[in-house]
């Protein structure tokens, strides 16, 4: 038995990783069960204790920074249960972390957007600092802003979860009213707020030149890029690859071997109209 | 129609757990008659009519209408049979006004698919004009006085033609004039061949108004017949189970308190508890004779009520001062203001000193208050009877004086003593007050203050819904309290009670003090005249005359 635990199953990215991992697990003959705690870390800690008590063969944490629940991870390690993380972080007791580097993702996103703006312009930002990974992207933005003194953040919004798309849509509508002419680009810490921003702009200011970019490669966002919307790019984390790598690593671990590297980075690639082979006017 | 009576109840039985509320109750009602249903508190009267209204299903027995056995499976079917009910505990929707309340459960007049507010109001105004011309129609029930709410209920019951109107103590919070008007309505109904089943503890009224009577005792019918063949004393004797020869204060039937024993709890006999030292025997009947030389215990000089009227008066030790007025005259407002529960301008002084703010400050100085509206202002139904009894002075029940933890044993002892003293009929002290009959709830409220030294007692309708025997007990307690040197201020709508107890009477009319009557000027006629606002000049209180 393999226990897959996450606080964010309903987030698109996390969900995709879990689904791919479950498929791999099925072919590998593991019995994988998923536990979602709806963003609640205290619950997550409790559920880890439960699966330790149930003596599962391995624990897979998805989209969690294990240092947020270090004691429970230690307890699992002490019970001889290997813990691997996907989209997590390195920590004592974690045998393997397969992830993409969130800071790197944030840098890629910022560079792409600033490049598109020609190094000059006003952006608005959607962020969510409560999630350590997403927070890293924000830090990457701050670093990038230092390099581009002509880019200014003129408004920001802490996205409300659940309901990020609707929240971002309303917020963008309001921004369009107050400073619609000044906004040149929308920086979204992940794709869902980017989708919300796209919906607002397409409804309220379809001719504006505002560009949007996000992170994840969320299929809905990709579709919007394909349709020549305002979203011009998303930094796609290769979730399939991550789940794949995690499943491979787990196979080795269950076979008694240690993986060569304790941390594997999955490549991230930028998706733009060009990479999708469409030409927009 | 010729032979079989209009309505017959045969051997009704109804249990609530171990309590037998009805235990073979019979009743025969002729069409167009005014029929009295009397009995002590807890005898089962309200339970009987709730069974008739379909609210309770009887455990045994039959109901026959026009000779046909029927089953009434809910309030709706009782309504359909032309039976109307005014229940004892008033059942209005607090935020609905009189008009909306009157129409609940009826087919509303409509315009298209929507209700027609104007037609609704017109119909209610028409009915109210006959019964209660002063009743405010647009005030939410929550802001009506209990008397006004009672009238609103009566209006509701008379909205549509009926074959039988059942009234459970409709006059208990009405004063003389309004009760008189209700009596006229009852006679009129009877003349229109609508039967009336009338429950009341005011036996004079029963003798005056009703043609026939049925007496219930402990859930069983113990007598029935024509009112003209009996007398007040005869009714009392039947109700309490003593011989005709007995007096009005004859030996009562045993309190059901004992039934506690059946359920495994320790049973207490009344004798034991009456002997409890906390309660000296009440003094023999005493009509408070405040010695004129003494300083007043209570002096009040304050504004009160929505209209902001001003009164000033003083009460000397040993006096029982009655407060009379029509429904809505402001008696309750005045008492609440004195009690510190509603803000008022002005001062009160207790033994010459101003008490602390709010009810707590008054209690600390030995004041006590019995509110009028027991359901909304008196009882917490989620607490048990004994907990309700102990609420006003919880700190008296500490096991250790320094630890604010009440001792259950002490509370139980107090509850049992008080219960026995007032002949409180209940299934057990640990039950909810919601299971008590109306009169017993009233006793509970009064009992709260027994066993405490009292300097000033404010009582609002002390015996509303209380049976004759227990009324005597409560009167006795009030007299004892006065005789011990306290001042008693009593608001009542029962003019008999007023005249029997008061040394002096203050009459309010529309929020103003219009008369102060004592000695020879204290007559029934003078009180009623003043209450209606026809105060002759010499009855004006001295304070107002000089002003």
């Amino acid at each position, binding site marked *: 038995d393999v226990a897959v635990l996450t606080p964010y199953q309903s987030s698109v990215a996390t969900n995709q990783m879990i689904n791919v991992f479950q498929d791999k697990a099925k072919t590998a003959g593991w019995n994988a069960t*998923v536990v979602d705690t709806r963003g609640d870390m205290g619950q997550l800690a409790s559920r880890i204790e439960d699966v330790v008590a149930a003596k599962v063969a391995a624990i897979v944490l998805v989209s969690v920074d294990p240092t947020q629940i270090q004691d429970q991870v230690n307890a699992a390690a002490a019970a001889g249960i290997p813990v691997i993380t996907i989209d997590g972080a390195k920590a004592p007791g974690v045998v393997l972390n397969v992830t993409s580097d969130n800071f790197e993702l944030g840098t890629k996103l910022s560079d792409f957007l600033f490049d598109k703006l020609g190094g000059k312009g006003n952006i608005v930002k959607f962020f969510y600092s409560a999630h350590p990974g997403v927070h890293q992207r924000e830090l990457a933005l701050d670093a990038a802003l230092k390099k581009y003194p002509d880019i200014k953040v003129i408004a920001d919004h802490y996205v409300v979860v659940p309901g990020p798309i609707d929240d971002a*849509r309303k917020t963008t509508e309001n921004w369009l009213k*107050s400073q619609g002419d000044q906004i040149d680009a929308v920086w979204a810490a992940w794709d869902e707020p980017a989708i919300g921003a796209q*919906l607002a702009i397409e409804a309220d200011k379809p001719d504006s030149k505002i560009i949007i970019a996000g992170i994840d490669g969320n299929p809905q966002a990709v579709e919007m890029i394909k349709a020549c919307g305002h979203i011009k790019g998303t930094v796609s984390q290769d979730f399939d690859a991550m789940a794949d790598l995690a499943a491979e690593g787990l196979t080795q671990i269950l076979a008694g071997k240690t993986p060569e590297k304790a941390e594997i980075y999955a490549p991230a690639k930028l998706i733009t109209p060009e990479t999708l082979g469409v030409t927009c006017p | 129609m010729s032979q079989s009576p209009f309505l017959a109840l045969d051997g009704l039985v109804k249990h609530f757990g171990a309590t037998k509320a009805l235990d073979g109750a019979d009743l025969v009602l002729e069409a167009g008659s005014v029929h009295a249903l009397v009995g002590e508190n807890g005898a089962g009267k309200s339970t009987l009519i709730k069974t008739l209204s379909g609210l309770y299903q009887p455990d045994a027995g039959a109901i026959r209408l026009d000779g046909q056995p029927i089953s009434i499976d809910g309030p709706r079917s009782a*309504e359909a049979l032309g039976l109307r009910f005014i229940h004892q505990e008033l059942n*209005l*929707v607090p935020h609905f006004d009189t008009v*909306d309340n009157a129409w609940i*459960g009826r087919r509303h007049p409509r315009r298209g698919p929507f209700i027609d507010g104007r037609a609704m109001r017109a119909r209610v105004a028409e009915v109210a004009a006959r019964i209660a011309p002063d009743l405010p129609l647009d005030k939410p029930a929550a802001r009506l006085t209990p008397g006004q709410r009672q009238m609103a209920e009566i209006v509701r019951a008379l909205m549509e033609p009926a074959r039988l109107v059942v009234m459970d103590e409709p006059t208990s919070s009405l004063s003389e004039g309004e009760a008189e008007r209700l009596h006229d309505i009852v006679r009129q109904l009877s003349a229109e061949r609508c039967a009336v089943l009338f429950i009341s503890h005011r036996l004079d009224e029963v003798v005056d108004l009703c043609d026939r009577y049925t007496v219930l005792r402990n859930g069983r019918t113990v007598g029935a017949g024509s009112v003209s063949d009996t007398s007040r004393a005869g009714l009392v004797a039947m109700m309490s189970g003593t011989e005709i020869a007995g007096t009005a204060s004859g030996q009562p039937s045993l309190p059901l308190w004992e039934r506690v024993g059946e359920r495994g709890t320790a049973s207490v006999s009344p004798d034991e508890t009456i002997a409890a030292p906390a309660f000296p025997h009440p003094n023999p009947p005493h009509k408070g004779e405040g010695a004129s030389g003494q300083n007043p215990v209570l002096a009040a000089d304050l504004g009160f009520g929505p209209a902001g009227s001003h009164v000033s008066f003083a009460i000397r030790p040993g006096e029982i001062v009655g407060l009379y007025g029509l429904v809505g005259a402001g008696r309750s407002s005045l008492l609440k203001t004195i009690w510190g529960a509603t803000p008022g301008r002005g001062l009160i002084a207790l033994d010459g000193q101003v008490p602390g703010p709010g009810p707590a400050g008054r209690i600390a100085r030995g004041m006590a208050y019995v509110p009028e509206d027991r359901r909304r202002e008196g009882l917490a139904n989620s607490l048990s009877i004994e907990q309700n009894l102990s609420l006003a002075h919880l700190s008296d029940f500490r096991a250790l004086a320094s630890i604010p933890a009440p001792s259950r044993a002490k509370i139980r002892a107090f509850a049992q003593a008080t219960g026995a003293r007032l002949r409180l009929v209940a299934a057990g002290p640990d039950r909810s007050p919601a299971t008590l009959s109306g009169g017993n709830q009233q006793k509970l409220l009064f009992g709260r203050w027994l066993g405490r030294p009292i300097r000033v007692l404010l009582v609002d309708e002390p015996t509303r819904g209380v049976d004759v025997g227990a009324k005597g007990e409560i009167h006795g307690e009030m007299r004892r309290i006065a005789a011990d040197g306290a001042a008693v201020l009593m608001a009542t709508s029962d003019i008999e009670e007023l005249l029997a107890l008061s040394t002096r009477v203050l009459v309010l009319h529309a929020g103003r003090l219009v008369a102060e009557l004592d000695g020879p000027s204290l007559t029934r006629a003078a009180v009623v005249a003043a209450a209606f606002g026809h105060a002759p000049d010499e009855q004006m209180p001295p304070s107002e005359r000089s002003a």
Partner: protein
Amino acid sequence: MILLRRYGTLFALALIVLVFTIASPQAFGTMSNLINITQQMSLLAIVAIGATLVMVLGEFDLSVSAVVSFAGIAAAALFAAGVPVPVVMIAVLVAAVAMGAISGFLVARYRVPSFIATLAFGTVIGGLTFWISNGATMFSGIPAGFRDLGRGTLAGVPVPTLWLIGTAIVFWLLLDQTEFGRRLYAIGGNREAARLVGLPVRRDMVVAFALCAALAGLAGLLLTARLGSAHPTGGGGYLLQAYAAVFLGMTAFREGEPSVPGTLVGAAIIAVISNGLTILGVPSFLQDLLTGAIILAAVLVRNFGRDGD
């Protein structure tokens, strides 16, 4: 002063609008922004109107957010299976009504406290929603014809606003002008009395819960139409806000009873605050602080000076 107490919350709304207009005449105080606000409040207000019905009974329905999410996901799943728009809408609304009726039945028949009954039943609905969606956001196959029900304008009025106006009128009439509405208020005001006069208490309660769920289902459909995607927890944000709107509305009129106009005022206050603060560019944390503070002030306006307990 009496007027202030009577319509305090309404004044508060006017005052809030006024302050924002002064602070930002070009952005906030424009007609187009005010119309925009009506659109932004529409889904919340529709859910809140449903909650109003149940609150009139003195009960809570905590499953509304679960029903919103469910309706969105169920519709998306049916679209993905190629079911035509009208059939999808009817099927989803019928399912929502059935869910509400079950909650109502548990509350009315077995006297389960509505708080716990609907919370537990909402969890069940949430499980169903996860099952259907596999926990994922669903966005493919949603037809444009359906999407137009939640976007665009008609004669200059945003379509969601039209839905809100329609819902508000129907339910205002229902609550205020029909016998059914009177009965709900009577049951909520004094259930015992309602029973004593023979009102069909159980049936009316079931109907009220069913209507509440129907409106939550409608909101879920409109949300999916508006976003072009359905999220398995997309309705999560509506629960507390809907009840906040109802409670704010209770302080707006009459004897503190829930009412449709009151709820609209409540929802408008919530929508105006978040629109105005965003337009003024107030930072996130301050937005929370101010939102809470303004709502408290709006409620206190009415209660100030009045004597407590």
